[in-house]
């Protein structure tokens, strides 16, 4: 892959539409998810209970597919400030939000939001 060049990769097809993944061979992964399939091809991640959760109730399948497995995918938010997915991390000193990363360590972001600062 050529650094800085965008590459379209089709992850999967269904009768409801498709998910396409735009990989920037730089530092973050940007997802473009067709609206048609949001309800059909998502995985439930919300918590059980009556109180509304601040976390995404359903995580796009494309995100599920590329997120590194050590992260808590049941507690994910999409931050409008940077357009990237963050997850709740229960650390030894505090519980805090961390950028959701791919197995290679790249932040996972949406295509329509501002690109994040990626050093760090």
């Amino acid at each position, binding site marked *: 892959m050529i650094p800085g060049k965008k590459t379209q990769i089709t992850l999967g097809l269904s009768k409801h539409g498709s998910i396409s993944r735009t990989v920037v061979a730089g*530092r973050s992964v940007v997802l473009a998810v067709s609206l048609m399939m949001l309800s059909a091809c998502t995985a439930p991640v919300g918590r059980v209970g009556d109180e509304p959760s601040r976390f995404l109730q359903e995580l796009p399948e494309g995100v599920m597919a590329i997120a590194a497995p050590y992260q808590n995918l049941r507690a994910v938010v999409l931050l409008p400030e940077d357009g990237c997915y963050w997850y709740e991390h229960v650390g030894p000193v505090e519980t805090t939000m961390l950028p959701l990363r791919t197995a290679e360590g790249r932040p996972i972001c949406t295509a329509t939001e501002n690109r994040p600062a*990626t050093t760090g």
Partner: protein
Amino acid sequence: MLPSIEPKADNMSTRRHFLKMTSALFSAPLVTPAFAASDLQGQWAAWDAQVTPPGYVAATTNPWGLHPRLLPVRVEARAGLTPGDIHVDAIARYLYHIQSDGTAMRYGVAIGRSGLYEPGTYTVGRKAKWPRWTPTPQMIEREPEIYAQYADGMDPGPGNALGSRALYLFLGSRDTYLRIHGTPLPRSIGSRASSGCVRMVMPHIIDLYDQVETGVTAHLYPAEEGNVELTA
């Protein structure tokens, strides 16, 4: 980064005070080392100024282009943690210094590459300003193209691999050669880049250094699985 022979910098101010006292009372020859210590302190101050950006404010100064989450910040800490201790959350790339009021100072760090980072419970057995650095034989053997040229040691200074300050991690009385130290490569903060040590931005560890006492515990928690080297 793993030093071998380095000056006992922590003892310097005490030694300097002693020498000043004795030189005033006794013979002239003792004056010379006192001036040498003063020169050393002056050199350290000059280097501190060199690596600290103008108008530096820990929480906001960021010429290094770090993600804002990696800048120093005070956070609320879990109950029951010992004030003074250090906790390194390797997954988050955060170092916490526990305060006595239930908070912690949090700093962004870089940790060792996969296979080199060694989680565990250590004691800060020693600390030093502007230390000398010598790579270990294992580092030279592993990456001779990088480290062989420093087999005889690297002089202290802003280009030194340990940077402005170093905290030396011990297991009992044994030096583990693991360090928490400054780095001349601040853009590596947030990544897995080092040969096993915990790296910090130099002005950040200058702030931390004065708050850390020798003898406190440093908890290094496990990192994620796999060779995740990039940042977030």
